[in-house]
């Protein structure tokens, strides 16, 4: 196993836009794989951690119990855990359901929605399905998060500059134009 620091990434209740933004660092991705190895991540499709990771990048907030388990697993395996994007930081678009009772959300999605065909009126209830949480939680309200990269999605430069700073033990100081909430 190489001695390069390892990076893990995951997408919880997100849209994979933040992962697209990671890829948007363009040819710098060649530099990145010189600097690091990827561990558990959709980028290399590793499903399980193979060792201790220096940095974990988390996209998306927690909307079900599986999200919480994955997030806790990331916290256990990563020295530095980074929330990437609005959903991880504030719940984002999925958190718009936080003002609506869960029962109403489920009924709208599986019983009463205009395009729903569900004559028996059964809500999805298979044991293989993760239970939906009462509301969507930002990652830092579930585990300790060390850094936050803002944006929807964060600019590739914000992700790149944060990674380079963290890998070189420098403080993360993003220029004004790179800190954006949209």
């Amino acid at each position, binding site marked *: 196993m190489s001695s390069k620091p390892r990076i893990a990434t995951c997408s919880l209740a997100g849209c994979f836009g933040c992962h697209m933004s990671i890829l948007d660092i363009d040819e710098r991705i060649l530099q990145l794989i010189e600097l690091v190895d990827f561990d558990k991540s959709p980028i290399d499709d590793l499903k399980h951690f193979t060792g201790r990771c220096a940095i974990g990048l988390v996209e998306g907030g927690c909307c079900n119990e599986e999200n919480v388990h994955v997030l806790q697993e990331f916290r256990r395996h990563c020295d530095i855990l980074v*929330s990437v994007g*609005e959903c991880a*930081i*504030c*719940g*984002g*678009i999925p*958190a*718009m359901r*936080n*003002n609506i009772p869960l029962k109403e959300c489920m009924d709208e999605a599986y019983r009463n929605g205009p395009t729903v065909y569900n004559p028996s009126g059964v809500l999805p209830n298979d044991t293989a399905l993760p239970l939906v949480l009462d*509301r969507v939680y*930002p990652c*830092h*309200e579930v585990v300790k*998060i060390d*850094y*936050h*990269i*803002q944006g*929807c999605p964060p600019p590739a430069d914000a992700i790149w500059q944060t990674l380079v700073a963290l890998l070189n033990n420098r403080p993360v100081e*993003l220029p*004004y*134009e790179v*800190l*954006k*909430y*949209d």
Partner: protein
Amino acid sequence: MSETIGFTIDGRPVRARPGQTILEAADAAGIYIPRLCAHRELHPFGACRVCTVKVNGRPQAACTMPAAEGMVVESNTPELTEHRRRLIEMLFVEGNHYCMFCEKSGNCELQALAYRFGITAPRYPYLFPNRDVDASHPDVLLDRNRCVLCARCVRASQQLDGKNVFQFVGRGANKTLWVNAERELADTNLDVRDRAVDVCPVGCILRKRQGYTIPIGRRRYDHEPIGSDIERAGAARGA
């Protein structure tokens, strides 16, 4: 009354006309004191406390406090900056501020203050309050999810438009922006050209059918922090 008042802000000598507030004198001197509820055209209100400075060691809202001879004002100190950051963070968690789809994003003063202070995430838990949206008016949208209770619209309607369209109801955590009508915004005499519509610092009061007209990269706070205009004018005068 041609006498001017001399005082200092962070050790820099500043002159003020009698009756000017600390904030107005600072603006004229090219010193930016962060603020949210204060607006050049409106009477000071002191709602947000973002402009809090220390006057002779005592916290005061710079927008309401008149300048006085010999005052020692502290503004850009680590303590006050931390205080302002926390106020901004509290405003973010106590409303529903979804910047990613808000029409005001990039031109929003609350967001711009967060950018200026380099806030990457609030340190308080999100409250996700239930707030009403009033889309009844044909030309104006009122989205209370984004309201920061700055009272700019309340004041502008009274002081600039000669109307009384907006008011607050409730107290404390239940304080809410309401309209002065039987039911909703459409029942008021608000006109889309009213100044009350323009002065909203956030995306709470918006003109309909105007969204996202300015592309990303050309919006007000895309490249320069809020307050840069005041600081630049000061630097140009050699202040």
